[in-house]
C-alpha cells in the first residue's frame, strides 16, 4: 500500500483543461471587474500576501531592535510606529480577511453547489474596499506612521499623539466595511443557495466555521466603526466623550473597542479551524469525529465570543464583580475550542493516515493552538492575569493562536486547495520541509516570550533590562528561521504554476463538492447542478463514485 493518497492523472497525457475560470476571459479589466468569486478569491490572495510581507518586514524590524537591551536601532518614536503598523496591518489586512476572503470566497459557493455567491457585485466591492483601506494604511505608514498601538487607547490616541491616527482609523473603517460585506454575503449564500438535498448538517465543517465567523463580522464590526468615529470626533473637535475633564470616560472607548476586537479574534481563528476539519478528514480518509459537536462548537464560540470582551480590561479599574462575570464567561468560551481539538484528534483514530503537507500544517496547528488556547486560560483566570497582562506573555499567547494557529491553518488550506485553484501540484518534499522549518522557527521565536512575560518584561518596550536579553536573542533568531519558512511557500508555489505536476480533478480523493469538478474549475463551477444525497465526508459515497467512473472508463476503453 503506498503511503500517499495522491492520485494524479497520467502526467504524459494530462493537460490543464482549456476552459476554466482563469482562461474564460482575458485582460486586466476582466480581472478588475470580475464577478466570479474564484477570481475575487485570487485577487484577495495576491493582495493579502503583499500585506503579509509588509507586516512581516515590520516584525523583522521589531525583532532586530530587540536583539539588544538598548533602544539603539531606531528612535523610540519610530519603534512605536513600527509595532503599531505591524499590528494594524497583520490584524486588519491579513488575519481578518485571510481564510474567508481567499479560500472562503473561492470555495464556499462550490461547497454548497452554487454557481456564485448571492451578491457577486458586493463581493467585488468588498475587495475594492479592502484595497482602499490597505493602500490608505500604506500611505499612512509612508507619511509618518501612527504610534498609538493597534488598540488606539484613549486618551493617548485622542489627545497625546500627533501622528496619523485619523487616516489609520479611516483605513480600518473602510476595511471594516469590506469585512461586513464578506460576512453578509457568506451568511445569505449559506442560508439561501444550498443545492437541494444539502441540509445544514450535511455541510462541510469549513462552511459552518465560516458561517460562525461571518456572524461575528456582521454584528461586531459596526461597533468598531462607532468607536473609530468617536475617536475621530474627539480628536478633531474635542467632543469630550472620552475626556475625563469634560465628564467623559476614557475606559468607555476600551469597552467599545474590545466589544469588536474580542469577537475579531474569533473571526480570525474560526475559518482556520474550518480548514483543519477538512484537512484532517481528507488525510485520514474518515468523516470528522463528532461532526455535530464540532459544528455547534463553532457557533458556540461565536455566541460566547460576544460576552467576554472585558477580559482585556481586568486591571483597568472595572468593578471586581464585572471581573468575576467576564472571567467565568471566558472559561466557558474556552471549552468549545477544547472540544474541537479532541474531535480532530479522534478523527485520526482508526483512520488511514498519510502525511502530506496540509496534514503536517494541521498537526502544527493542533499542538500550537493547544498551547495558545491554554495560555488564554492563564489570562482569563483573573488572579494570574494581574501578573501576566500587558507583558510578553500576552504577545506570546496571541502569536501562538494567530500565527501558530491561524497562519498554519491558512497555509494548510492553501496547500490543500492549491491543486484545485491552479490545476497544479506543489512540490511535496520541499513543502513538507518548509512546514517543519516554519514550526521550528515559530517555537523558537515565540516560546521564549512566554518566559519573558512571566519574568515581567512589558510589551511594546523598545529597551529592556539586560537580564532579558538572552531570551530576546533566541526569539529574534527564531524569527529569521520563521521568515525563511514563510518565504519558501511563496517561491515554490509560484514555481508550481508553471512546473508543478498536473493535478487532475481530485488529487486528494476528497469528498467535498468542490473536488467533483475539474481543476481549475469552470467559471460556473459545475457544468450541471450537483445533486446532494449523501452526508458530509462520506467516503463510501466517494468510493462508489470512483468505482462508477472506473467502470465507465473500462467500458469506453473496450469500445
Amino acid at each position, binding site marked *: 500500500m503506498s503511503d500517499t493518497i495522491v492520485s494524479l492523472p497520467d502526467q504524459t497525457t494530462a493537460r490543464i483543461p482549456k476552459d476554466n475560470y482563469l482562461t474564460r476571459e482575458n485582460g486586466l479589466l476582466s480581472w478588475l471587474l470580475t464577478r466570479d468569486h474564484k477570481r475575487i478569491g485570487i485577487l484577495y490572495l495576491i493582495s493579502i500576501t503583499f500585506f503579509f510581507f509588509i507586516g512581516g518586514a515590520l516584525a523583522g524590524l521589531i525583532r532586530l531592535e530587540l536583539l539588544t537591551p538598548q533602544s539603539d536601532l531606531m528612535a523610540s518614536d519610530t519603534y512605536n510606529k513600527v509595532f503599531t503598523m505591524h499590528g494594524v496591518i497583520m490584524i486588519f489586512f491579513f488575519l481578518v480577511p485571510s481564510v474567508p476572503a481567499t479560500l472562503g470566497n473561492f470555495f464556499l459557493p462550490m461547497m454548497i453547489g452554487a454557481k456564485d455567491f448571492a451578491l*457577486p457585485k458586493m463581493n467585488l466591492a468588498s475587495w475594492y474596499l479592502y484595497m482602499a483601506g490597505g493602500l490608505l494604511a500604506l500611505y499612512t505608514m509612508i507619511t509618518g506612521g501612527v504610534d498609538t498601538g493597534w488598540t488606539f487607547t484613549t486618551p493617548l490616541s485622542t489627545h497625546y499623539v500627533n501622528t496619523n491616527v485619523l487616516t489609520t482609523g479611516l483605513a480600518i473603517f473602510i476595511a471594516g466595511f469590506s469585512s461586513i460585506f464578506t460576512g453578509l454575503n457568506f451568511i445569505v449564500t449559506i442560508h439561501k443557495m444550498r443545492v437541494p438535498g444539502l441540509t445544514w448538517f450535511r455541510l462541510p465543517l469549513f462552511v459552518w466555521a465560516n458561517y460562525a465567523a461571518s456572524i461575528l463580522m456582521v454584528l461586531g464590526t459596526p461597533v468598531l466603526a462607532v468607536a473609530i468615529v468617536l475617536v475621530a470626533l474627539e480628536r478633531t*473637535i474635542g467632543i469630550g466623550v472620552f475626556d475625563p475633564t469634560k465628564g*467623559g470616560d476614557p475606559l468607555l472607548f476600551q469597552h467599545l473597542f474590545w466589544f469588536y476586537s474580542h469577537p475579531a479574534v474569533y473571526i480570525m481563528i474560526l475559518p482556520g479551524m474550518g480548514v483543519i476539519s477538512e484537512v484532517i478528514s481528507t488525510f485520514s480518509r474518515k468523516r470528522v469525529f463528532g461532526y455535530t459537536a464540532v459544528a455547534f462548537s463553532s457557533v458556540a464560540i461565536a455566541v460566547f465570543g460576544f460576552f467576554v470582551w472585558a477580559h482585556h480590561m481586568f486591571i483597568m479599574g472595572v468593578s471586581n464583580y464585572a471581573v468575576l462575570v467576564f472571567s467565568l464567561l471566558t472559561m466557558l468560551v474556552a471549552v468549545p475550542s477544547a472540544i474541537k481539538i479532541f474531535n480532530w484528534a479522534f478523527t485520526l483514530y482508526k483512520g488511514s493516515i498519510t502525511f502530506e503537507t496540509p496534514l503536517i500544517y494541521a498537526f502544527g496547528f493542533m499542538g500550537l493552538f493547544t498551547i495558545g488556547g491554554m495560555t488564554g486560560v492563564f489570562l482569563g483566570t483573573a488572579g494570574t492575569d494581574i501578573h501576566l497582562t500587558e507583558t510578553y506573555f500576552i504577545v506570546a499567547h496571541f502569536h501562538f493562536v494567530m500565527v501558530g494557529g491561524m497562519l498554519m491553518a491558512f497555509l494548510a488550506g492553501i496547500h490543500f486547495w492549491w491543486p484545485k485553484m491552479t490545476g497544479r501540484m506543489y512540490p511535496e518534499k520541499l513543502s513538507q520541509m518548509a512546514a517543519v522549518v516554519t514550526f521550528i522557527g515559530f517555537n523558537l521565536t515565540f516560546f521564549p516570550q512566554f518566559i519573558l512575560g512571566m519574568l515581567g518584561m512589558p510589551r511594546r518596550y523598545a529597551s529592556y533590562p539586560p537580564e532579558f536579553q538572552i531570551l530576546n536573542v533566541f526569539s529574534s533568531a527564531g524569527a529569521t528561521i520563521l521568515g525563511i519558512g514563510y518565504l519558501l511557500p511563496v517561491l515554490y508555489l509560484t514555481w508550481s504554476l508553471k512546473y508543478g505536476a498536473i493535478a487532475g480533478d481530485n488529487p486528494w480523493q476528497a469528498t467535498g463538492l468542490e473536488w467533483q469538478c475539474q481543476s481549475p474549475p469552470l467559471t460556473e463551477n459545475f457544468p450541471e*447542478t450537483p445533486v446532494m444525497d449523501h452526508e458530509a465526508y462520506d467516503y463510501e459515497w466517494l468510493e462508489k463514485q470512483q468505482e462508477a467512473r472506473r467502470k465507465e472508463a473500462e467500458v469506453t476503453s473496450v469500445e
Partner: protein
Amino acid sequence: MSNSPAITPETHTATEHHEHPPFLLHHFNSMEQQNDTSSFAMWLFLLTEVMFFGGMFVVYMIYRNWYYAAFVAASRQLNVAMGGINSVILITSSFTMTLGVWSAQTKRKGALILFLILTFILGFVFLGIKGMEYKEKFEKHHVPGEHYSLQSFINPASDAEAMATGTKALPLDEAVHTELFFSLYFAMTGMHALHMIIGMGLLLFIIFRARSGAYTTGHTAFVEYFGLYWHFVDIIWIFLFPLLYLINRH
C-alpha cells in the same frame, strides 16, 4: 445592490439554455430564490446598521444616566417644535415611500414617480429643518469644541430657551457635561443625516430609473429594499427624537 434588472451577458452551455424571466441573475435558480436571498441580505444589512447606531445609543444611555441634570438642561435647548415637525415629516415620508412601493408592485409608473418625488421632497425639508437647527446651535455656541460656551447653562437668564423652559442654573462642574450631550446630539443626528443624504442620493437614482419603467415591469426588488432602508432611517429618528429632545419635558 446587485439586483439591477439588466441581463448579465454570460455564455450558456447547451444544457443550460432555458426560459427565464429577464431579471433572473444567472447564479440563481429561480426568481423565488433570488428574491428570497436579496430580501434576507437587505434585512441582514439593516441589522449591521442597528449594531452601528446601537453603539452610539449605548454611549448615550451611559452618559445620560451619569449626568442627568446636565442632559436635561441641554435637551431643553433643543427646539421641540422643529424636532416634532421633523418627526411628522419623516413619518409621512415613510408613508409616501410605502405608497411608492405599492405603486411599483401594482405597476403604476406615474404614481410611483409621484410618491418617490414626494418622499424626496419630504426628506429634503427634513434636512433643511435639521440644517436650521444646526445653524441655531452654532450661533449659540453649543457646538462642541473650541467655541463651546457654557453661558446658557450657568446663567440661564442670558438665554431665551432656558428661560422659556424654566431651566435652573447648573453649577460649573455639572454644566461642563452639557458638552457631552451636544457631542452625542451632533454625532447621532449627524450620522442619521448622513444616512438620509445617502438615501436621498439613492432616491434620485431610483426616480431616474423609474422614469424609464425599470420598477414597474414586475421587478420591484430595488424599490422594496430601498423602502426598507428608508423605514429604518425613520425608525432611528423615532428613537432619537424622544431621547434627545424630550428628556424631562413637561
